[in-house]
């Protein structure tokens, strides 16, 4: 817990009481999903632990809130308005039509009106209007403008940490207003005055210091991977390798560090290895870039995002690989697919020396970067993998589209490939597959409730409540079709669901990775 007593003005008041003690209550399943009635301030207690100077300073953020922060925050907002067209256009364009009001899983789960996307944006828009628009300067009341104050900051810290940046609202807004962009800007502004989410800032510190979010040092990683090799050999008789830092390998696999030891994540890592083994592709992990996740995105900080992404570029150059492949992680894939080319030149079509250097090394015959699902699906189509589908017969499978993959990226060669490819793979390796209700899948998918850096324990109540719409959709097909396995391709979804499923009466082992299913069914050549 942050010691805020030395701060000039006390840090967000509610952050001072440990939110973890708050009761975690799962809402009841609704018979017919209706829009909840407003429950004003029902989530006002939910606030993350505040980062301390020890977390903030290594990232270049001030240690704590200090005198004069209001002006600094407003100035930072001005800076971001000049750097991000999204923010500027979204601040101006909302007509308060209300179309987004019932689209956020956190609103559905809590009824707190400040979890309606437009109301969440208005927390910032009210300040924007006060300082950056004429009507807000002259008639603040008329347009709902407010001064930047401690109360406002407290509300920001609470409610921008109840947004998983899932972008569901942006699908439904007539102007595509993306609350995630607003949330990221708000977090960037808060960090710039020393008010950050402890969990997130701590993790970014670990990435820089050790190379991954979990703080697993190289030797530990090596041990883990050796252990995996032994397990797989014992189980299958095949000498599948999980190589680390192998120069000259064809593929560099960058995967969320949870894959190295967390359940059920590790089963997917085992699956990736089996796929490469079966296809005879040489590959390696990197101890330097032993993390695909990039929490820089969650706090909207371009510098952090670029620094974290740069590790992958450096590892690729050092190891001399030809292809870069990303494991099952939703926000990592968004950063990789949508941002890596911009941030680090992993991708094609550049004419600047910085990116061209890398382009010379990477194989232009492959999409750069590729998602592991793209790799596997291409191999399946080419007939290079064999499966015993019956091995998955104890499972009736459904697929949870992770928000960052669904609405922030793509796979394959056409719009919407990110929906089809994982489903194609599942159908190729398992006999029983059922989709959840179309209102809750594809671009309309509901977030697991733990995205955007909200995966910390003190936020468990909002995490559980935010999972409601997904849990309801799962419940319907579990009852009707006996679905007992929800596959997903996101480390955060997996971690979140293992925690949250029991609150809704499901077994935590119901969630797993797509490559976990691949791993179960794949037929390896045991002679090797």
């Amino acid at each position, binding site marked *: 817990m942050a010691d805020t007593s030395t701060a000039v003005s006390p840090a967000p008041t509610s952050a001072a009481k440990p939110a973890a003690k708050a009761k975690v209550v799962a809402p009841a399943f609704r018979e017919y999903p209706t829009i909840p009635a407003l429950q004003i301030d029902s989530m006002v207690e939910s606030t993350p632990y505040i980062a301390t100077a020890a977390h903030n300073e290594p990232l270049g953020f001030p240690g704590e809130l200090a005198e004069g922060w209001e002006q600094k925050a407003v100035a930072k907002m001005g800076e971001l308005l000049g750097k991000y067209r999204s923010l500027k256009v979204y601040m101006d364009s909302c007509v308060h039509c209300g179309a987004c009001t019932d689209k956020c899983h956190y609103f559905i789960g809590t009824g707190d009106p400040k979890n309606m996307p437009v109301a969440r944006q208005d927390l910032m828009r009210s300040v924007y209007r006060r300082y950056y628009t004429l009507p807000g300067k002259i008639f603040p009341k008329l347009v709902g403008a407010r001064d930047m104050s401690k109360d406002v900051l407290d509300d920001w810290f609470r409610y921008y940490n109840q947004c998983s940046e899932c972008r569901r609202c942006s699908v439904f807004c007539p102007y595509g207003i993306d609350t995630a962009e607003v949330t990221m800007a708000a977090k960037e502004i808060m960090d710039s005055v020393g008010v950050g989410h402890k969990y997130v800032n701590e993790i970014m510190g670990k990435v820089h210091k050790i190379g991954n979010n979990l703080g697993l040092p190289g030797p530990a990683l090596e041990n883990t991977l050796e252990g995996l090799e032994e397990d797989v050999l014992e189980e299958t008789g095949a000498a599948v390798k999980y190589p680390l830092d192998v120069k000259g390998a064809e593929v560099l696999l960058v995967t969320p560090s949870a894959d190295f030891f967390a359940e059920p994540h590790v089963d997917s890592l085992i699956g990736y290895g089996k796929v490469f083994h079966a296809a005879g592709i040489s590959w390696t992990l990197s101890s330097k870039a032993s993390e695909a996740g990039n929490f820089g995105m969650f706090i909207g900080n371009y510098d952090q995002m670029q620094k974290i992404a740069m590790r992958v570029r450096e590892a690729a150059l050092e190891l001399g690989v030809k292809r870069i492949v990303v494991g099952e992680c939703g926000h990592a894939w968004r950063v990789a697919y949508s941002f890596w080319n911009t941030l680090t030149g992993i991708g094609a*079509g550049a004419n600047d020396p910085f990116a061209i250097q890398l382009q010379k090394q990477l194989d232009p015959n492959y999409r750069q970067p590729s998602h592991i699902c793209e790799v596997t699906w291409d191999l399946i189509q080419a007939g290079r993998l064999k499966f015993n589908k019956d091995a998955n017969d104890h499972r009736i499978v459904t697929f949870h589209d992770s928000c960052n993959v669904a609405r922030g990226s793509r796979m394959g060669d056409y719009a919407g490939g990110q929906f089809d490819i994982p489903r194609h793979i599942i159908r190729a390796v398992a006999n029983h597959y059922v989709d959840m209700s179309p209102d809750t899948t594809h671009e309309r998918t509901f977030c697991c409730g733990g995205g955007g850096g909200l995966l910390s324990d003190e936020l468990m109540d909002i995490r559980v409540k935010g999972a409601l719409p997904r849990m309801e959709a799962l419940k319907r097909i579990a009852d009707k079709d006996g679905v007992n396995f929800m596959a997903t391709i996101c480390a955060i979804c997996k971690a979140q669901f293992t925690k949250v499923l029991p609150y809704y009466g499901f077994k935590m082992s119901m969630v797993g990775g797509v490559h976990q299913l691949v791993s179960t069914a794949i037929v390896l050549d045991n002679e090797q």
Partner: protein
Amino acid sequence: MNYLFALLFYIATLILVGGVAYRVYDYARTPAPLKIPTTPAPTTTSGVAFRMFREVVFFESLFKSNLWIWALGWLFHVGLALVLLRHLRYFTEPVNFIIAFIQPFGMYAGFAMAAGLAGLWARRFLVERIRYISTPSDHLMLALLLGLAVTGLLMKFVMHTDIVAVKTFFLGLMVFEINPLPSHPGLYLHLGMVVLLMMIFPISKLLHAPGLFFSPTRNQVDNPRETRHLAPWAAQLERKA
């Protein structure tokens, strides 16, 4: 009154044109440093143009999200568009045949516009969630537009004014000539509200109209692996790195 309205219209036109031009320039010069289209998104520029067309003409996203708001909003906007086109006859001589052709539709469009506005306004009172997010300015904006529609319809159907004189007045304004405006309270009210609307356009949520075209989630092509997208300020960081 002639001079007052002439002056007001000149000022309002300057504010509207200058203000919107400045806003558009400001949006255009602000970089979008990252690729953030809401996917699945078109992978080609023509695809994006088609997506934008569907958004502007059919309000596609709104249709997905809420049929009530879509129906009322679309009714209002289509009504507004037809009414605006119909008003072009006050500014052109001879009247373009397309404008002449839509005159009868334009009349009904006035009712559609008013009905749509009334429905949208009712939502602000009746739907708890929308009541919560509404600010006084949201109500005033609807009141203003509804006032415009109602005074317009009144002049059309109840208390007629001399529209030939009105046309002479506006044609005159366009060549900096001030002709008499019929002295008619309904007309004064109507024109007063037009002036007000023109003046607040560039400083209010009416910016949604230009804003839509600049929304990165809607106007970006989904091709980050094929082309490197780099904002000037981001490129500068790279040089330092």
